[in-house]
């Protein structure tokens, strides 16, 4: 789900850098405002590395297999930190795999980052986070259910919006004198709809991951950018 170099007009690529830069600058400003900014640096860094590695896992959907996008999960766990994390992830991907993506790094960061931040907001409002750590058994079950729903939403929103933006950018920037707008919209819609299974799988995966983390390391779900002393 990466826009390759050379495909989109330079102006769009530059616009992508501008938006990604602004969002990252805003994230860093928020991070700097928190009391424990410095402490978060290694956390975000190592989590970014973990997301990078885990996103390489194969999920078999015969006849092929897919990689999870994890933008929703990153949003849920990292909050506003997701933006710099995604930027770093994409940069290291370009460096380590050498498949290019330097002029489109900005736009790709927007395609993953904006949905991640929206997923973060959705996750926050649906998980009812304040009660996350209450102890009684009955309440726990309910909370787990809510968490799973919130996780599903985060994952699905992450993939869904990323897919829409991805095809949107590609099709709406096809060089001039082209197919009529209606065809464009239709193509975008069809291509996006064909990704519905991915959205369901990523949603389910994120729900399972969130529920795993709530059992094993609940503090991870508190959201890093909120962790102000």
């Amino acid at each position: 789900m990466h826009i390759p170099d050379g495909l989109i007009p330079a102006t769009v690529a530059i616009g992508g850098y501008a938006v990604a830069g602004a969002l990252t600058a805003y994230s860093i400003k928020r991070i700097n405002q928190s009391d424990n900014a410095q402490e978060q640096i290694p956390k975000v860094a190592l989590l970014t590395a973990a997301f990078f590695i885990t996103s390489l896992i194969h999920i078999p959907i015969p006849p092929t297999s897919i990689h999870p996008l994890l933008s929703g999960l990153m949003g849920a766990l990292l909050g506003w930190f997701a933006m710099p994390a995604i930027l770093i992830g994409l940069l290291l991907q370009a460096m380590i795999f050498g498949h290019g993506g330097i002029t489109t790094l900005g736009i790709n960061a927007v395609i993953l980052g904006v949905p991640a931040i929206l997923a973060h907001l959705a996750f926050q409002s649906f998980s009812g986070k304040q009660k996350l750590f209450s102890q009684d058994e009955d309440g726990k079950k309910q909370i787990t259910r809510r968490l799973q729903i919130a996780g599903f939403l985060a994952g699905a929103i992450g993939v869904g919006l990323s897919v829409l933006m991805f095809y949107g950018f590609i099709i709406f920037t096809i060089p001039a004198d082209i197919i009529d707008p209606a065809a464009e919209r239709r193509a975008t819609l069809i291509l996006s709809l064909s990704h519905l299974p991915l959205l369901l799988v990523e949603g389910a995966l994120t729900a399972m991951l969130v529920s795993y983390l709530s059992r094993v390391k609940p503090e991870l779900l508190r959201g890093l950018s909120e962790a102000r002393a």
Partner: protein
Amino acid sequence: MNALEITNLTFSYPEQPVLDHVNITIRPGERVGLIGPNGAGKTTLFHSVCGVLKPSDGDIQLFGDSVKAGKFHPKVGLVFQYPDDQIFSPTVYDDIAFGPRNMGLTDSEVEAHVHEAMSLTGIGELAERAPHHLSGGQKRMVAIAGIKAMRPELIIYDEPSANLDMRSRRRLINFIQESDETVLLSSHDLEMVVEICDRVILLDEGKIIADGDTYEIMGDKELMEAHGLEKPHSLVYHIKGKHSHDDEFVPAEHIHGDHVH
């Protein structure tokens, strides 16, 4: 029928050869220690035996069946060096049940396997805990239980005593000594090897240097030091010439007998 029969096993990474025409035969019920310096090829050998790595050459027979890389061989279980690499489920019970479930057993069989493994390893009361919060010694036993629950006939332990305190190490040694399966074990903790294994194989740079009686091999100071190892203190000879024993080969353990078993 042999428990394990390795013939001419050879393995190379693109950059370097690791195992070089290794031949090992282990009879059922034996407890064999595999010793050698870092990078000797111990873990590579284990992974080949379990079918994780595909050897460049050679043949491996496990209780009469040929080991094929990439296939699942429930007859052999590998306990990894770091329990964290092996334990991943959110509860201890789930983790131990993971193998049996994959073997296609019924629910009640799974439960029977898990309970047996938990009671053997003495971790019954941990069933509902998150493995993540256990101590190093408990994690080690959970990892072993996860393997035991598949009821393998050969268990391979890769550095089982790493990072354990004395108490957990002692429990582990007793546990392995009392277990029924054939055991193949690698360790830099040579005192543990002395206690568990009657047979030792010394591997260095992918070649078998020695294979035989534990006391004989580990008591051979020159041999050990030539391969970056040290003779265990428990095998330090009785002082020569000063007492009656003179040149006799008597490991300290046999003379003194005042340490714990």
